[in-house]
């Protein structure tokens, strides 16, 4: 794009609503995710109140509780973490870090955002329909999700859920194709793939994994829709009996849906978690004032994680009735992922070695990510080993584990990223003290919550129960529930400090300057806030690697920007 005079859009509608500008679209995603996050987080608070209340005086009825569980999972995975970290930051960062003026297909980009908006309305609206929101879990296994006889939420609520998921995948596929095209075609002059910041690498892999795996669920969603409304039997076998009546279905199997769901579901985990890891590498490099340790090995590890993540989905299905010997293959393959992950983890730790650490807010969140990846990663081995998974399956151990990985790691990444790139977007800094308060109230509490859930899972406590009181086997785990609930209040309340800091700093924050963190990557080569077109009349060129920091030099003199 040779743009001599780059005029930005003038009207409010074209500038802020139907914008083609990747930064505006990224922010739209981010703010949509914040709104959905308030809602999804609110559902979590309600669930925790229920679990800490006495069974004689429950907060909500059991049918409402399973709807809360279902919609909390759906909203958080697909409409908060995906939107904030992958779609939001992906849009903001990819062109900036590549030294491009925009994404490869700006119109497609806008379309992708405006496809997700109706999906959000469908999800939120499903709480208002008869029978309530979907209640078959975020995994929506049929027959529960296929038959209105099976559970009240399986009425219109489930239909809206399926429609929302289909729109989400359509939106995400448009975004993913755009990421891949941008990364392959719009890099600055002189930037080879191996000169890209690790954040961009992780978005590259995320986009590839997403576009390869997500369409499987589109197919599953349409088949399930047909089973529900078209009289087909893709997922419904013969012999289903409800209220002494046999249903006319025959020939299908729910196992097929589980395969299709997890063919999306497992890569989805990596789609979410990889960008947080990439951001942590970039943040650590800036604040440890040294290049990330083992850039190449990290890239190779990310590639191996990507390849492996496509062939291990069956580890979610060890006890489903799938042939256990097939399960054993999935077990052997899954634990191989620990090897590249260990390389990534150790490279992160070693990226501090011989550095000169500056403990600014983004760095605190990045260091938190290292610790959580340790706990989440090792906890994953308990679940990937098919024999121990028999005990842990559908227990709070699983809940604790995946929340650490796709809840806490991604949340820490999102927060770290917001504090770090805020000056790029708005030309102002977020308040440092409030940022530290935010970190110290959020991180220890949220980490403790999910570690305690591992202990509950070890004691046998089963998930998706509105009330555990009639069971005796997880007695010791149950006693932890009130503590977890109190910590949830702390975490939830603290996020208002963050929101206050975010919105006030947009207008009142300290003016930042173009490169406030003395960072090297290309997004800091242009003015901050980045104008429409990102860089004045001439685009930056990549003249060196992305991380030329030298901790042997004094501050101010210890870095060489990639564009210089």
């Amino acid at each position: 794009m040779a743009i001599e005079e780059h005029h930005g859009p003038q009207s409010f509608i074209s500038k802020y609503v139907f914008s083609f500008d990747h930064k505006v679209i990224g922010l739209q995603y981010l703010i949509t995710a914040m709104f959905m996050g308030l809602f999804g987080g609110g559902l979590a608070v309600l669930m925790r109140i229920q679990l800490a209340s006495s069974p004689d005086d429950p907060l909500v009825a059991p049918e409402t509780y399973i709807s809360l569980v279902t919609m909390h999972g759906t909203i958080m995975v697909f409409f908060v973490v995906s939107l904030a970290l992958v779609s939001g930051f992906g849009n903001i960062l990819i062109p900036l870090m590549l030294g491009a003026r925009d994404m490869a297909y700006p119109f497609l980009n806008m379309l992708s955002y405006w496809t997700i908006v109706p999906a959000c309305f469908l999800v939120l609206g499903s709480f208002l329909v008869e029978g309530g929101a979907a209640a078959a879990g975020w995994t929506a296994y049929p027959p529960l999700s296929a038959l209105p006889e099976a559970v009240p939420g399986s009425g219109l609520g489930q239909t809206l859920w399926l429609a929302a998921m289909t729109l989400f995948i359509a939106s995400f596929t448009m975004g993913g194709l755009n990421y891949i095209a941008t990364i392959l075609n719009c890099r600055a002059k002189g930037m080879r793939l191996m000169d890209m910041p690790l954040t961009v690498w992780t978005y590259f892999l995320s986009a590839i994994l997403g576009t390869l795996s997500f369409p499987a669920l589109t197919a599953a969603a349409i088949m399930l829709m047909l089973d529900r409304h078209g009289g087909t039997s893709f997922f419904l076998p013969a012999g289903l009996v409800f209220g002494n009546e046999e249903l006319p279905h025959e020939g299908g199997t729910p196992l097929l849906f589980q395969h299709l769901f997890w063919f999306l579901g497992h890569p989805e985990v990596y789609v979410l978690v990889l960008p947080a890891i990439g951001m942590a590498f970039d943040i650590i490099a800036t604040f440890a004032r040294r290049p990330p340790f083992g850039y190449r090995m990290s890239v190779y590890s990310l590639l191996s994680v990507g390849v492996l993540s496509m062939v291990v989905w069956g580890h979610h299905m060890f006890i489903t009735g799938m042939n256990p010997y097939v399960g054993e293959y999935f077990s052997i393959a899954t634990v191989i992922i620990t090897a590249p992950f260990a390389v990534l983890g150790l490279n992160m730790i070693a990226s501090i070695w011989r550095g000169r650490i500056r403990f600014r807010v983004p760095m605190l969140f990045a260091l938190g990510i290292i610790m959580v990846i340790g706990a989440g990663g090792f906890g994953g081995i308990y679940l990937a080993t098919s024999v121990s998974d028999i005990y842990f399956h559908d227990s709070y151990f699983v809940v604790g584990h995946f929340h650490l990985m796709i809840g806490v790691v991604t949340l820490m990444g999102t927060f770290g990223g917001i504090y770090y790139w805020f000056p790029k977007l708005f030309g102002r800094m977020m308040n440092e003290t409030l940022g530290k308060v935010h970190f110290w109230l959020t991180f220890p509490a949220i980490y403790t919550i999910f570690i305690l859930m591992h202990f509950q899972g070890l004691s046998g406590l089963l998930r998706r129960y509105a009330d555990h009181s009639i069971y005796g086997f997880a007695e010791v785990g149950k006693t932890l529930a009130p503590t977890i609930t109190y910590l949830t209040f702390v975490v939830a309340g603290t996020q208002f400090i963050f929101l206050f800091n975010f919105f006030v700093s947009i207008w009142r924050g300290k003016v930042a300057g173009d490169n406030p963190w003395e960072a090297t990557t290309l997004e800091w080569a242009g003015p901050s806030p980045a104008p429409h077109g990102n860089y004045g009349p001439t685009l930056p060129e990549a003249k060196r690697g992305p991380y030329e920091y030298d901790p042997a030099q004094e501050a101010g003199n210890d870095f060489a920007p990639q564009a210089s």
Partner: protein
Amino acid sequence: MASGKSRGFGLFFAIVTVAIGVAVAWGFSRGWLPEVASEHGKGVDGVIHYLMWSTGVLFLVGHLALGYFIFKYSKDQAQANAAVSHRTEAKAAIAPVLAMMAVSEIGVLVVGLPVFDEIYGEAPADAITIEVVGKQFEWLVRYAGPDGVFGKVDPKLVHDSRNPLGLDKKDPAAKDDIVKRGVVTIPVDKTCVVNLRSHDVIHSFTVPFFRTKQDTLPGFTARTKFVPTKEGQFELACAELCGLGHYRMQGKVVVMNNEDYEKWLSEQESWL
């Protein structure tokens, strides 16, 4: 940031890091597991304990390294050039790859596989076989009766109160089948094979004290087996979200000595 302040904070953060490592590793080892009452359950616990030890040590080492680096490099002073060659970086990756492959594959193959065989392998000739059917929201248990053959069932005949399993009266093998609601009665120290079916949605047959869990899928017969090692009553629960009553789909497993079991079985009347 002034160097002194940074140093103090570095020490603080390093202590927090190490404390987290110690607390989590210690916490895991606190004996959360409920008592075990089956043969293969001991093996499952063995795998869990193996993982607690091996990953616990690695977890602790990682946190110690991270804490040490955070403290040491919080000092604002010139460091030797941190750039190392690609070769050195590649070599540094060998140790974690080997360590993780060893720890995790030993868990799956060496410690895990014998237990896997106990759960999914061939049952011995003297094993008893029962059928458990999940339906919203209770467990139905069927014994083959004196003829040792499970009779035919037909979903069309299912009636909650009169014929919960839909046994076919025309099949002679069905006539002596014994059907119980919510209680699985079995002898101690004998392999018990459970064939699992479902009438409606997916349930999961879960006996935490046995470390047993197997989904029941409609249209499909799944199988699990175990050898109870203790007499008594053990809770049976559903682990797969199955609807409104999921949380109260409770049953129990009663384990008695062989004589009592034979006596109990002979006293049961057939359903039809």
